[in-house]
């Protein structure tokens, strides 16, 4: 049994680069969660208008979108020599973040 699992596990980078990158994704999704909670609080605090509710729903959708992007990338990082992140993944992650700020502007104004 031990032999089988040793055979199945990929060769490990002594610098633990894939693990460090996976943890960086984890930190980023956690930071995203904090920002999304602050956004939801902003929308639902004082008598939410229709714009606030829509912006809050968008915040939560963007949060789910970022979690999905992060989850896919973290799964890809479990191999020993993961491929570089694709431009589409990076762009999707950054655009989700920029869109959160746009939602925030809609809520504040």
């Amino acid at each position: 049994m031990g032999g089988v699992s040793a055979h199945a596990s990929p060769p490990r980078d002594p610098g633990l680069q894939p693990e460090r990158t996976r943890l960086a994704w984890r930190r980023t999704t956690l930071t995203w969660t904090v920002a999304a909670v602050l956004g939801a609080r902003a929308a639902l605090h004082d008598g939410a208008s229709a714009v606030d509710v829509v912006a809050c729903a968008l915040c939560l959708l963007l949060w789910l979108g970022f979690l999905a992007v992060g989850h896919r990338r973290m799964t890809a990082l479990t191999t020993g020599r993961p491929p570089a992140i694709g431009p589409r993944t990076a762009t999707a992650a950054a655009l989700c973040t920029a869109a959160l700020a746009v939602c925030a502007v809609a809520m504040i104004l």
Partner: protein
Amino acid sequence: MSTFVQSLRLWFAPERIRQEGDTPDYRFSLANERTFLAWLRTALALIGGGFAVDQFLPDLRWGVRVGLALALLGAGVLCSLRAVNHWVRCERAMRRGEDLPASRFPALLGVVVAVVALAMVVIVVFGWEG
């Protein structure tokens, strides 16, 4: 400006960036990815700061509060877009074996954060209530 448009095309086209130069050591690409994520976290912190200014400083005059919040949110947008642009440029430079791109953005962001912090100090000390 044309270099910006070029890298803007690369944002969405994985096959184009893979055509350039040689694939670098995967560890360098992962380090570039972590830098990108660190910039995204910086952007998220600025956005969270914008939310926080709007929610937790209700005693400020409306104009000051909204102005500060919008400044932080605008910095967050710039920071996240710049994160992916810088990532593409670094990835391309590594593939071509060139020097990594130099950038004024960290200094600019530092100055903006310092100005916002000074504004907050002035507001707290002199108590500009609405």
